[in-house]
């Protein structure tokens, strides 16, 4: 039997910034975008990844010994090196590591398995009018699985929200909307070529989908405010102006100050963090952007 399975990075109960009430946030794997500032790079790839936690590692070499692909090297100086092209994700190194320094990011779950997990948090959803939020990664990349899962949630009266980058074929998104109560949609840059430079894709899908979603569902736009990248008055004004045309379903714009919490994860994935020189935006700048958005008649909020 070929049962539908989803690839999930992590579940985070007691999530408090991604929808009303107390929520369980489901981080799905896979994303069509490669945003430079991405704080969860471990969710980008549609497949397993090995995370190496350098602070736990004693460089004992057991992982290298057990690796049948010769993908792990222990240099005398510096960190353990993983050749990720050679790695077949057999996870032997993870099993053998006595210091819990290696982790496999990614777990296949069926819809009932995932539902059983989130159902444990029902007592909290009930009390707080909370629910689940699909995040990631980009949940719509696994739209078949997500649709089944959301359908099950709705059958059990659980509030559903989804964060999306908006870069997805409309028919797939439309199918998910049937089971969604609230949509968070990222507007990362209003200038399409710039959007492509920063995220790897143009923004035409995003803006087009934004218009369509707003015609039927409550939507919150999110702007990850990255200094020097997309935080100009010009870009924020353009976004607010676009939002102002969305009508009543557009609830507000959330201005999410850029942070570096994900930077360490790049390192743990053996990747380079491209934005290492950028500092989080000043509080005063965030407040000015909020006022700017509000001047378009749109509600604005700093942070999620």
């Amino acid at each position, binding site marked *: 039997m070929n049962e539908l399975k989803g690839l999930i990075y992590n579940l985070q109960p007691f999530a408090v910034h991604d929808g009303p*009430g107390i929520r369980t946030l489901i981080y799905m794997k896979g994303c069509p975008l490669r945003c430079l500032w991405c704080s969860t790079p471990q969710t980008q790839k549609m497949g397993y990844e090995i995370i190496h936690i350098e602070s736990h590692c004693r460089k004992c070499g057991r992982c290298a010994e057990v690796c049948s692909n010769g993908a792990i090297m222990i240099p005398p100086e510096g960190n353990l090196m993983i050749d990720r092209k050679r790695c077949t994700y057999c996870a032997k190194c993870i099993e053998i590591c006595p210091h819990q320094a290696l982790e496999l990011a990614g777990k296949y779950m069926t819809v009932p398995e995932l539902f059983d997990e989130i159902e444990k948090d029902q007592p909290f959803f009930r009390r*707080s009018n909370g629910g689940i939020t699909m995040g990631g990664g980009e949940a719509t990349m696994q739209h078949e699985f997500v649709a089944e899962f959301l359908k099950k949630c709705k059958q059990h009266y659980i509030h559903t929200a989804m964060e999306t980058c908006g870069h997805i074929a409309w028919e797939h998104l439309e199918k998910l909307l049937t089971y969604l109560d609230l949509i968070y949609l990222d507007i990362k840059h209003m200038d399409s070529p710039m959007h492509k430079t920063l995220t790897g894709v143009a923004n035409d899908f995003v803006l087009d989908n934004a218009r369509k979603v707003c015609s039927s569902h409550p939507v919150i736009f999110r702007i990850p405010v990255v200094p020097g990248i997309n935080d100009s008055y010009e870009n924020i004004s353009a976004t607010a102006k676009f939002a102002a045309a969305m009508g009543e379903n557009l609830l507000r714009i959330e201005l999410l100050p850029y942070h570096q*919490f994900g930077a360490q994860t790049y390192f743990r994935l053996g990747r380079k963090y491209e934005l290492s020189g950028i500092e989080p935006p000043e509080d005063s700048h965030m407040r000015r952007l909020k006022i700017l958005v509000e001047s378009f008649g749109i509600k604005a909020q700093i942070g999620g």
Partner: protein
Amino acid sequence: MSDVQSALRDRVSTMRPAARVEKLRQRYTKIKNKVVIDVARILTRTMKETEGEPLVVRRAKAFAAIVRGVPVNIYPDELYVGWLWSEPRGSEIFIKYTDLEKELDTISTRKYTPFLLDDADKRILKEEIFPYWKKYFYSPIIPPEAKKMGIRKAPITPVLFHYVVNYEKVLKRGISGIKREAEDRMARLDLTDPDDIKKVPFLEGVIVALEAAAEIGERFAAKARELAAMEREEKRKEELLKIAEICVRVPANPARTFYEAMQSVWFVHMMVGWEAGFHGGQSIGRADQYLYPFYERDIREGRLTEELAQELIDCWFMRFSQMFSLLPENEAVFMSNHTSAHHIDIGGLKADGNDATNALSYMFLEAMMHTPGMVEPTIGLLVHSKTPERILIKACQLTALGGGYPQFINNDVLVDNLLSRGATSGGKPVSLEDARTFGGCVGCHEPSLHTMESGWTVGQNQHLAALMECVMTNGWCRVHNTRRGLETGDPGQFKTFEEVREALRKQIIHRMKVGAIAANLGEELLQPTLFTSALTEDCIENGTPREEGGARYSLGAVSFDGAVDAGNSLAAVKKLVFEEKKITMEQLCTALDHNFKGYEDIRKLCLEAPKFGNDNDYVDEQVAWITHLTTEEAKKYLSRYGGTKYPIQVLLSSFVPLGMGVGALPSGRLAGEPLSDGVSPTVGSDTKGPTAVLKSVGRLNNAEVGLSQTLNMKLDPVIFTTDEGFKRLADLIRVFVDQKVDHLQINVVSSDTLIAAQKTPEHYKDLVVKVAGYNARFVDLHKDLQDSIIARTEHGL
């Protein structure tokens, strides 16, 4: 207080603290701790002088001598008079702490919480006080059977702690009124009845004690008048004359105003401490309930404004924080704030089952907001299914400020707990009305029937984690290399998981019996109280001190620890040895014998086995089984002052030193590492956050654990980014009520804590923060990321 916290306080607080409050608060934080020996000195001298008289009479005379003999001081700017130990930050030497005798020369210079000590006082302690009380250090006789069970010496606990006396009765009748009640009882004695004859010395003692207690106000009134006569500043002169007027009235007579009532309660609380010679868990009870009529009448009749009432409450609250228990160095290391746990409950139920929250409940929370840095009173919100949202939100706002208060006490579980006592303790059944009206907490957060319960001593701790170790060693303690438990068989030969559980069951049954015997021996020289008994129902009517069973309800305590560690260990053994068969019992035992050194693979398997606190039935049911067994065993034994014993798993900071004596465990915990803090998950093992912890703890039968178990939780302040955070925390507390967890204390992590964790990571392994997409132990993160999270905390984002 950081800038973020100050800003948050300004946002959530409804009233600015009065100038006097801030002035006193600043002053109190600067005073150095000092040893005061007035009470011990007078007690010892009187006990020597009265040798040969009945003990109750001697204790009564000693109490009277203390009340008439302690120094009477009134300090500038203060609205109340009387300090428990003569002056703010004074502490009494408690004779129970035998180790202090050896530390008198170093007490003022020791690293952890030093106390100043005068040379003259030190001499009196060495020459008069300690030599006299030596016979009370350890039980003089250990029966051979007890010795065989491993009891070599049993430390004596001379007084009962953990109770709330009937403050309300003092407010309504005055000490003199209660003295008349005792006289009346004496007059009603049937002297032809030998039982009644036995009551004479006690009732005589009560009358002597109450007569002295009624004079305390007059002593302070005289002092206040004297100071007023010399006072140049008109406003302070008026204040002193007002104090004199109040003290002439209370506590001898019924209180007429809110101010009088507050001073009266304070006097009584002080005298209860004097009689015990120590303050530990003597609590204030549901003060918002019994003080409310005075507040309401004063406001209605225009004698009091809300502002003045708040100032009175703020100043009253700060007094509780100025008395630290003086502990020997080995305990002081782990408890930097030796708080005495003056518990105050707010909110809760009325007799008819409806909510009891009133204006004072809010003002008490506001007082906590006005007095940051004060570690007392130990304020608890009694939460139940009808608790109004507004008080819950206010409580969550206080929580957000980071002081760890209020505690959340599940009133619904409390009522279940108290109602079950009559059936199981052998005592009187508790009525539903009493459970609702007098149910509250004492000390840290132990359930109690206020005003009518005996109080209890903690006695000796039963280490369930150590018993789990005994299962794996056939009774041996690896750390001290001695026999510690029963010989339950060679663990290598256990063929089924049931055999392992059976071995632990036998160890626990045996140990609880040892604990009961040790407690009985330790309580053998319990000293009767007169004043405290007189204010405990129904001691006067029964003509018997509460130490002899005079209280309406009595119970003893058997303290235990490590249920979570033992449960985690059982789950690991079940999974790895008997289900997945990844390792054998022999291999596991060998790994444990070597503290996992050279057996890191086995330790990894052990660590990855399910852990309590993650909403996982597999392990939660093991912890539930252990807790139930321990509870059932405790209730098999009677206490010497009535009722059965009850279990308690409230460890303050001692889960750290206790862990030092326990070797490696199948849970993967290394030798010497801290144990779990009450029923809180073992450090670093709860990876799913607060919701999963509440579900796990909720799976235990919390109402049956008579004297409660601590649940401490650290919370990342990231949830308070917006005001919605208060609501979300309130929702979390509603689930805490739904899930029948009985106690919860939340520490919101401050940037100061995070900075401290960077410096000494080994002390902060339990700090879990939200990162991007995952929760992580703060100490495992890279320095740059740690700095970013500190910045997030400081910015309130």
